[in-house]
């Protein structure tokens, strides 16, 4: 009966109900799209950064992330390779040596992050091989180097030219070697583009007198959503085969800047959502309050007929839930296909904004990503709004006085 009464009551003033529902629909559409956009952009940033370099997980010598020097290492033994490749949830693994070198060509010199990578494995984890714009990525050859585009520019070298690599080896002795440029690649992040050089893992180990040591083994997980499980599996697999203590770091620890940026961005988005919720709550509150105040007399009649005051409280609550429920249903019906369409059709960015996203290491594309929790969050939010906004009007209704029923017009 309460449900029927509530349903008919909200149908009483169609225009008012329409406007209130429209506000709820607007809020739901906004919330779903905002979350979808944020999820999409964040996931894009994470995936780009993970695929660009870091990997989902990194196996390193204990404490490597603290100082990032050659002092902390893992030993890339066949046993470790087997253990990691065989760990459940691991899609690919690539060992790397992270060094630093001064590259010079005549008087031109440039400091770079010198990466030793396994040409056969690297492509499965990072996108470096696909990023080559001139020449080729590393193959089986010795003393070959691939440069960031801006590094090549600064050194005035191109594919086929030779340059000098100067660095300090693990033994803390100076190390020099001539390398031939095999390819030039373009990194989306200009800072990286200005400071990146890749050589083969074998060359790096030889140059740095590093033997079988590596700085990190970057892993790509099969399912990014189940990273914790994969991390645990890898951790237990590597402890059995490694003499040294190893860390298994998730990307959040490898790239704390990224993680923090996402957290700050989320905080900003949620504060905006909070304000939106506030505004919509007031709108709904007003509608329900008006309808309660208009019906004081009618509510009095129901009390006179023997309805319990708490039933009136419930009635108003059901009305509020129905109003927001209709708004929610319509809102979701509009928002979900909308977000799904946006997910299929990312928006390319241009101009300054594009350059800026590149600085954060993200391709200049805005992607939507609709996840199951998104409409659920919108639903929870709307129910919250309904519960909150009905509180005062419902209390007001429950305090209606039965004498009002007998007041003459």
């Amino acid at each position: 009966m309460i449900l029927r009464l509530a349903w008919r009551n909200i149908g009483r003033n169609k225009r008012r109900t329409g406007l209130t529902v429209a506000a709820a629909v607007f809020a739901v559409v906004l919330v779903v799209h905002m979350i979808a956009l944020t999820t999409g952009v964040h996931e894009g940033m994470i995936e780009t950064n993970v695929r660009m370099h870091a990997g989902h997980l990194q196996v390193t010598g204990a404490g490597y992330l603290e100082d990032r020097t050659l002092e902390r290492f893992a030993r890339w033994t066949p046993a470790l390779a087997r253990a990691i490749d065989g760990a459940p949830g691991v899609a690919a693994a690539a060992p790397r040596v992270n060094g630093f070198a001064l590259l010079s060509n005549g008087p031109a010199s440039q400091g770079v992050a010198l990466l030793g990578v396994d040409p056969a494995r690297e492509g499965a984890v990072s996108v470096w091989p696909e990023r080559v714009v001139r020449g080729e990525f590393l193959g089986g050859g010795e003393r070959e180097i691939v440069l960031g585009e801006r590094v090549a520019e600064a050194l005035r070298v191109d594919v086929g030219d030779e340059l000098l690599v100067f660095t300090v080896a693990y033994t803390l002795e100076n190390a020099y070697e001539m390398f031939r440029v095999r390819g030039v690649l373009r990194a989306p992040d200009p800072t990286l583009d200005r400071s990146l050089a890749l050589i083969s893992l074998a060359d790096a180990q030889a140059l740095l007198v590093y033997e079988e040591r590596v700085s990190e083994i970057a892993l790509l997980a099969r399912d990014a959503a189940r990273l914790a499980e994969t991390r645990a599996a890898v951790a237990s697999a590597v402890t059995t085969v490694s003499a040294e203590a190893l860390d298994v770091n998730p990307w959040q620890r490898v790239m704390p800047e990224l993680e923090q940026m996402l957290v700050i961005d989320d905080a900003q988005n949620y504060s905006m959502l909070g304000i939106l919720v506030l505004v919509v709550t007031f709108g709904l509150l007003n509608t329900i309050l008006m309808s309660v105040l208009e019906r004081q007399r009618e509510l009095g009649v129901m009390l006179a007929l023997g309805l319990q005051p708490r039933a009136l409280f419930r009635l108003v609550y059901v009305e509020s839930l129905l109003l927001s429920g209709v708004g929610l249903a319509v809102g979701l019906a509009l928002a979900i296909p909308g977000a799904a369409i946006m997910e299929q059709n990312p928006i390319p960015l241009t101009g300054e904004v594009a350059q800026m996203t590149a600085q954060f290491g993200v391709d200049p594309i805005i992607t939507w990503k609709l996840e199951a929790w998104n409409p659920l969050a919108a639903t929870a939010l709307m129910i919250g709004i309904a519960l909150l906004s009905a509180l005062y009007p419902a209390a007001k209704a429950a305090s209606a006085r039965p004498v009002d029923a007998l007041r003459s017009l």
Partner: protein
Amino acid sequence: MPILDARDVSKHYDVRGIQTWALRGVSLAIEPGEFTVLAGPSGSGKTTLLNLFGALDAPTSGAVAIDGQDLAALSRSQLAQLRLEKLGFVFQAFNLIPVLSARENVEFVMELQGVPAKERRERALAMLAEVGLAEIADKRPLEMSGGQQQRVAVARAIVSQPRVILADEPTANLDSTTATKLIETMERLNHERGVTFVFSTHDPQVIARAHRVVRLRDGQVVADEKGGA
């Protein structure tokens, strides 16, 4: 034992700083089965006394008891329960619930009492037939005439089998033919079912049909005439 019993009740209103005494020391007992009229000009305290008998309002001083139960001792929700079990109301301004049809309005109180749906429906239709409204059972109040609405209100009051029906100027908004028909309906119900009726009215036609006429003036009982029709 009287079904309704007011002992030395006074009711005092304070409307925007202006003090008004609506009732001053009224004592009145209504026995089961009576067909009583509260008569008097407007402002004499009829509606206030009905409100007190209906457990809709509380007196400033004095005590009101329904079926031996002192109202002052009851909570808001116990009062609601009492109204649900023992009282029926017919209001001057009809006061049906606008979003419910005639049948649903009649069913409303039975639903609160927990009568099963099938029985509710049968009793509501029988009741509407009894007051001559079987054909408008599915209409909403806005689609009915005033007389029809008031008869639905009577049907709603009677269907839950209350001990007492309180009616505040039930004929005030009706023409005289319709009013007569309404009073006849109520008289018949009083006679056949033994339901106690208490009206407030200043309609001489209604007063003429009452068994007992209590006259009020300036918040006091000035006459109590028994016998009558």
